[in-house]
């Protein structure tokens, strides 16, 4: 029996995370309104979907952002809010904000042409890491150890058709243990943390990193909450590295996956997301 609350879920594909969100909503008596990001249309004159809140689970940054703006136009709140998706989903904008909030983050230089990219890498120092401004799962990232390598990578990136590849986001290569940390933040709570271990320098779970629960130390909790707050708050996964000089926040994910984290910690993340979204919908 539904309690009358309609929780929209905007998705690309249904993974375990989305199934858990559906189940958590239904077990709380809410109606689940499924919104396929490849199927929905938005007009200017009325709500696209009848929902009290929409949880964004689309894996496409572009679709997420436009949809969140359209839902906002409709008067339908979203988790996360459009500004949060825009900021956290773009590594350049996110780095600027982390720096403005004085949150420790790897040394970063942005360049807008292949020629300037070489200068940017020189400023960061070798080895350096080149990342796409948008996208994740460790795709199209490159570690460059010499100017020769840099020239080749920059040439390859320049040959890619998308204009986003003409933005060069260069970061220092941080010497760290063969692991990084992820803290899952929902609203004002850091609810779980895990280590992601990998012999590859990229520790994405999507690249096969192994995971285990990590203690949520006061330092980790405080830094993760500050980073999430810097992006505007909501449902965010804060990724951190253990550098020789302390913890560094290197990414804040606005549409986080949590299958590995749920497995590693047993935390009811889907339930926390649903409860938070219902709170946003009832504001």
């Amino acid at each position, binding site marked *: 029996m539904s309690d009358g609350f309609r929780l929209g879920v905007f*998705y*690309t*594909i*249904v*993974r375990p995370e*989305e*199934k858990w969100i*559906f189940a958590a909503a239904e077990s709380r008596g809410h109606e689940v309104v*499924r919104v*396929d990001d*490849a199927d929905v249309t938005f007009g200017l004159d009325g709500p696209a979907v009848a929902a009290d809140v929409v949880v964004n689970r689309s*894996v*496409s*940054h*572009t679709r997420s952002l436009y949809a969140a703006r359209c839902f906002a136009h409709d008067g339908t709140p979203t988790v996360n809010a459009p500004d949060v998706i825009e900021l956290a989903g773009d590594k350049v904008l996110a780095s600027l904000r982390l720096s403005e909030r004085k949150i420790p983050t790897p040394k970063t230089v942005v360049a807008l042409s292949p020629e300037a990219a070489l200068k940017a890498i020189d400023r960061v120092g070798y080895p350096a890491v080149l990342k*796409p401004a*948008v*996208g*994740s*799962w460790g*795709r*199209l990232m490159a570690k460059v150890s010499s100017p020769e390598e840099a020239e080749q990578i920059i040439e390859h990136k320049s040959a890619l058709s*998308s204009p*986003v590849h003409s933005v060069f986001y260069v970061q220092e290569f941080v010497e760290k243990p063969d692991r990084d940390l992820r803290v899952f933040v929902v609203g004002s709570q850091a609810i779980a943390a895990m280590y992601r271990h990998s012999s590859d320098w990229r520790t994405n779970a999507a690249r096969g990193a192994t995971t285990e629960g990590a203690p949520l130390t006061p330092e980790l909790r405080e830094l993760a909450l500050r980073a999430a707050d810097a992006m505007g708050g909501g449902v965010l*996964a804060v990724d951190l590295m253990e550098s020789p000089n302390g913890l560094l926040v290197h990414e804040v*994910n*606005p*549409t*986080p*996956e949590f299958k590995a984290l749920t497995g590693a910690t047993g935390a009811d993340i889907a339930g926390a997301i649903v409860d938070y979204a219902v709170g946003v919908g009832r504001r």
Partner: protein
Amino acid sequence: MTHCPECDAKVEQRDMVLGEVFPCPDCGTELEVFGTTPFAVQPAPREAEDWGE
């Protein structure tokens, strides 16, 4: 039950939901459920450049 559009192997519905992505048990192609009654599958959407978390 339906068939994989790539290799024609039999694919069982089990407890899959609309939009769920799973590999074909025979050829491994990623398939997406696009109908539950009747059960229907299609190749899953390909990963795009802006996909991620």
